[in-house]
């Protein structure tokens, strides 16, 4: 009758632990971001509140809570209040299908899965939950009745929906390789064998780029471009409503990195190639070790994302759209085609060669592909590489 109860209790424990971890991580990742920023810019960064500035997130949170909550004239009140919650809720419900460990084995041989919900549509649930985030951004921009917010919201919505397509197609390559939508199964396929990062390098790179764009991180953060749109869709927001937008962004980043680690880096797998690896089920100590390994991978990916943010300049909007629709989507369709043909022929261990073959094919046919319309070349900005007179290429 109650055979589902052990799994339910485990799931609730995992959910409570990871939820608090995500919220705490969101606060401390902002501190880490400021430290990384200071480091790349040869500064010191926040170091006044507590040892090495470690109490800074607490001070920030307290300050934001007692700040004046400000609603300007002319806003759509209901949507204005709803938008921050609509950003943070989809970000918070995503992690429930990510395996944070294998199976906990009891003495009588029964076992429970260390994840929030071991449902057989896990991967689809995660994309559905994360893509709901576009509502908060779009509605926040529209409700503010501010031109900056409106443009920022429009841009962010267009960007998120555009990058969802290559993300879905890259994910599809992994699903084809693994043959399942269960995240636990995808991890266990990589435990004995290669990581999908090595089997499907092109899909992994595509997925990572789309992850940056979906989370609105640099170099794709032009929805909140400070120089042109002040802050984009959260220009008019203040106090905790503003903080919810930021929390949503960082939790989204953590969940996306965990998703990447599960799909392409084998979750808690420590051996990237075929051979010995950690067992999938075991005692509580093994589970804690697996949890630590997953968190380590998540931290590595988040750190990489931060380094990307403070190293690369921001795209222009037409470049962003061009990259998604004329670059990533054809490329991901090609990778999908290659993967399905290789799966049909049963050459799944040669998928990495197929990825390299795709790149070689693109390099070969590059001269015959339709190029850019040449608009950028006709802007002779003084001091730029276009400042010298170039022949007019026509419209």
């Amino acid at each position, binding site marked *: 009758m109650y055979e589902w109860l052990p799994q339910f209790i485990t799931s609730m424990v995992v959910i409570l632990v990871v939820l608090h971890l995500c919220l705490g991580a969101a606060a401390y990742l902002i501190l880490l971001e400021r430290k990384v920023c200071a480091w790349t810019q040869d500064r010191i960064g926040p170091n006044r509140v507590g040892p090495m500035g470690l109490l800074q997130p607490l001070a920030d949170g307290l300050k934001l809570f007692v700040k004046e909550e400000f609603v300007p004239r002319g806003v759509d009140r209901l949507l204005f209040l709803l938008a921050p919650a609509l950003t943070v809720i989809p970000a918070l419900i995503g992690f429930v299908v990510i395996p944070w460990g294998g199976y906990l084995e009891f003495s009588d041989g029964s076992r429970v899965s260390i994840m929030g919900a071991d449902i057989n549509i896990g991967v689809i649930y995660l994309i559905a939950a994360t893509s709901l985030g576009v509502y908060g951004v779009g509605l926040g921009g529209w409700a503010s009745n*501010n031109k900056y*917010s409106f443009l920022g919201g429009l841009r962010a919505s267009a960007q998120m929906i555009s990058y969802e397509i290559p993300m879905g197609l890259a994910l599809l390559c992994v699903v084809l390789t693994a043959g399942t939508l269960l995240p636990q199964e995808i991890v266990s396929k990589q435990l004995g064998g290669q990581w999908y990062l090595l089997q499907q390098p092109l899909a992994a790179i595509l997925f990572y780029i789309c992850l940056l764009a979906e989370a609105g991180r640099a170099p794709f953060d032009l929805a909140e471009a400070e120089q042109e749109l002040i802050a984009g869709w959260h220009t008019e927001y203040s106090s905790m409503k503003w903080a919810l937008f930021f929390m949503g962004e960082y939790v989204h980043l953590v969940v996306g990195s965990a998703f990447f680690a599960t799909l392409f880096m084998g979750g808690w797998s420590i051996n990237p190639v075929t051979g010995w690896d950690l067992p999938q089920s075991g005692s509580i100590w093994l589970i804690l070790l697996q949890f630590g390994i997953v968190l380590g991978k998540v931290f590595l990916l988040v750190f990489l994302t931060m380094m990307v943010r403070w190293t690369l300049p921001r795209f222009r909007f037409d470049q962003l759209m061009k990259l998604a629709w004329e670059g990533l989507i054809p490329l991901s369709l090609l990778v999908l085609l290659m993967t399905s043909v290789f799966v049909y022929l049963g050459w799944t261990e040669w998928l990495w060669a197929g990825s390299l073959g795709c790149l070689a094919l693109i390099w070969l046919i590059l001269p015959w592909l339709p190029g850019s319309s040449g608009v950028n070349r006709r802007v002779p900005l003084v001091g730029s590489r276009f400042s010298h007179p170039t022949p007019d290429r026509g419209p």
Partner: protein
Amino acid sequence: MPPMSLMLANQLPLYLPIVILIVMAIIFGAVNILGSHLLGPKRYGEEKMSTYESGMNPIGTARRRFNVRFYILAMTFLVFDVEIIFLYPWAVDFAQLEPGSPEAGLFLGRILFFLLMSVIAYVYAWKKGVFRWD
């Protein structure tokens, strides 16, 4: 294989934590918005309540017409997103078939035809200039 209703009954408790988590997330969002609403000070002013436009007096409302390309982009997205959703069940089934068997070939051929249809639509949209933003 057990009957479908029984399998569903075995699966349903797995979805319970998701429902609880969604409720917790909604409570978290509501508490944060309400909390800052109750805790923060309130001071009103004629200039302060106006829309922020870099210190200038705001001109008109922001809810105006905007570029039609956003609409076209959203419609193109819809086509591709629905197509991708159709591909997921196919991918799971296709990967479990015997490689090289005739039915796997049938599966592959049908989905390639399906993909070809959307690639034709994609090329048409490209030629029409849907993806041009300059």
